[in-house]
């Protein structure tokens, strides 16, 4: 099985490539990236006027399976991923049961083996049941095949327990992902704390509830010499704290999600529950800081925080509605529209944050087009516009904050491990 992609603008930051080249895929691996490859491949794709890049590695995805198959399944989420140009997802552990033991991990691995259309990596929990009380058997989780640990949706409140977790993770060679939120400060908040929460009569979530926990997790990372990755950074103070820590040599990386550099708290003024997520959409100043952080490298990665919810859970009173939005199918287009077309990042910069950096953070042989690497490739029509509407989304849930938006950039092909997983 071989695929030859001809004449596209190939972007591969790892190998400092940004040129019109051909890409040859053979036996699930990248075989060659060069000018005018003359080879009789099984499939030849004309990629002229298109972008050819490594497939996206999305470090923050909620598959909902097992447990909430009404919201999403491995099959539907990975289909959505492929449609969005995502070839690898890190599945968050807040499933039912939670990924806190090898048995649960094996259960999910079985489903993935049957249903997944792209690579699905599993993230285990830090604590049993994500309750922040008792550590999971981190070594056993590693052995069962998880790629990271996180209590996603919750932060481990106890400093001692978190420090212990970081030490165990380091021993096991696992990355620890931190959901940075001090629930004592965020309380029952539902949107960003500020004038908008006041005028809407809703409880606010302060920046402080995020950045104080970012600061603590970085402090613990320093003390344990372990690597931490801060999930979904949303506010300016967090960006500053992370940038400073990086300079002092702490092993800290972080991600943000497309909605944090696209939308502000003003999107909440109509009580649209599709704009409700945690952390919440922040102020204009925060949005600017997130963009700046992406530009200067303080923010390493873009991840969707794909969080599907059914209409029943969203089409209700704002305060009762679930937190979270879907994003697998829109993250690339939103980023092209908001970052490339507004000159925040160039193509190599965007691909670095979508592919190369997350692959490095997770220690994967992906996110690059190096000969011999796994052949995860995405071909993009970057000038093509489309309007996000519910029927266009293949994810089981339609809770996108970008419904009705006109976005630039459509994926033509997603090739995962040398096989075409999606074709427009």
């Amino acid at each position: 099985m071989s695929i030859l992609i001809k004449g596209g603008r190939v972007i591969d930051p790892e190998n400092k490539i940004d040129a019109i080249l051909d890409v040859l895929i053979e036996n699930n691996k990248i075989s060659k990236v060069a000018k005018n490859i003359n080879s009789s491949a099984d499939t030849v794709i004309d990629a002229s006027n298109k972008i050819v890049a490594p497939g996206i590695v999305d470090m923050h995805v909620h598959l909902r399976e097992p447990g909430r198959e009404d919201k999403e399944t491995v099959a539907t989420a990975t289909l959505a991923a492929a449609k969005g140009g995502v070839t690898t997802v890190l599945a968050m552990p807040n499933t039912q049961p939670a990924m806190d033991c090898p048995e649960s991990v094996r259960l999910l691995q079985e489903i993935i083996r049957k249903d997944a259309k792209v690579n699905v990596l599993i993230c285990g929990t830090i604590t049993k049941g994500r309750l922040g009380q008792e550590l999971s058997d981190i070594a056993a989780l590693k052995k069962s095949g998880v790629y990271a640990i996180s209590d996603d949706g919750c932060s481990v409140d106890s400093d001692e327990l978190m420090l212990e977790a970081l030490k165990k993770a380091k021993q096991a060679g696992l990355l620890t992902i931190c959901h940075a939120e001090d629930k004592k400060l965020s309380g029952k908040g539902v949107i960003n704390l500020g004038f908008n929460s006041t005028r809407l009569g809703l409880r606010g979530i302060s920046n402080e509830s995020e950045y104080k926990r970012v600061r603590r997790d970085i402090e613990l990372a320093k003390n344990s010499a372990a690597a931490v990755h801060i999930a979904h950074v949303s506010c300016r103070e967090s960006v500053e704290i992370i940038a400073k820590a990086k300079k002092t040599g702490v092993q800290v990386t972080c991600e943000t999600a497309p909605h944090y550099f696209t939308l502000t708290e003003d999107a909440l003024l109509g009580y649209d529950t599709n704009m409700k997520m945690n952390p919440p959409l922040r102020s204009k100043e925060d949005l600017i800081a997130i963009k700046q952080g992406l530009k200067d490298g303080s923010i390493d990665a873009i991840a969707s925080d794909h969080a599907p919810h059914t209409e029943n859970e969203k089409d209700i009173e704002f305060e009762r509605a679930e937190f979270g939005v879907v994003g697998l199918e829109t993250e690339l287009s939103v980023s092209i529209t908001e970052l490339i077309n507004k000159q925040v990042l160039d193509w190599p910069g965007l691909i670095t944050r979508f592919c190369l950096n997350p692959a490095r953070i997770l220690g994967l042989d992906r996110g690059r087009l190096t000969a011999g690497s796994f052949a995860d490739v995405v071909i993009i029509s970057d000038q093509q516009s489309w309007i996000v509407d519910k029927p266009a989304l293949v994810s089981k849930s339609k809770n996108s904050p970008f419904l009705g938006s006109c976005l630039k950039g459509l994926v033509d092909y997603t090739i995962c491990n040398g096989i075409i997983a999606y074709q427009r």
Partner: protein
Amino acid sequence: MGWTKKDLLGLEYLTPEEIELILDTAESFKEVSTREIKKVPALRGKTAVNLFYEPSTRTRVSFEVAAKRLSADVINIATETSSVRKGETLIDTGKNIQALKADIIIMRHNYSGAANMLARALDISVVNAGDGWHEHPTQALLDIFTLKEKLGKIKGLNVAIVGDIAHSRVARSNIWGLTKLGANVTLCAPEMLLPVGIELTGAKTSSNIDEVLKKADAVNVLRMQFERDEGTAFPEQLDYFKKFGITEERLAKAKKDIVVMHPGPINRGIEMSSEVADGKNSVILEQVTNGIAVRMAVLFLISQAREAKK
């Protein structure tokens, strides 16, 4: 200019002209309640549904009286006894009421934004009778109507709003309405009960009630609910009365004709002394009377706008 909106969700969403139109229309309606036969046929054949998710006697009854004086039929749905108890969603409830061919839903809800959501989902009119901490537009309209009746104008008036601003929909609606009509609004409360960024509405804030009262032409005293929100720090009751309670001693140092308002029900001895509540500056019962006229105006204008769109 006329009224074109299908719903009344809050005063934040209205122009000064729209607010004036409601007030002017209310003035015409006030006369109806003074007649021997307190009824006009304007909304004959229309059905208004009172959908109250929070217990409220005065607002519900006021709306009911207003609708009936316009000859509308009124149906009261108490959520304790309805299918809401059985887990029906708000939108489903609304669509069912719409399917009954009702014309207006008057809704009180404990969640902020519930009226906005319902209005978006339905073709029939929604009148917000209070949603969470968000807005209570008809209360503010009747407060402003009363103030205008007493003092002849709104523009340039110094109006103090005293009490738990953070958790008050009455405060929010009053702030929007009064500032839009050109009043100088000062919010007076303990620091912890002033919500973040409230001064961006144009209102000033203060924690010194005596200073605020000195300049005030009117004071709107909010009901203090110490039990409402667990997790929020509240001042101690007696301490609150001492520092912010409206008493005769305090009023003695205020303008002689200061207008004292309260949306009710009053906690005597907590936010206001009995002497003040029943005193010569108090217009609390006039507010209740005016509430009928204001709500008649709102129901009339909204139902006219819907007819015009048909």
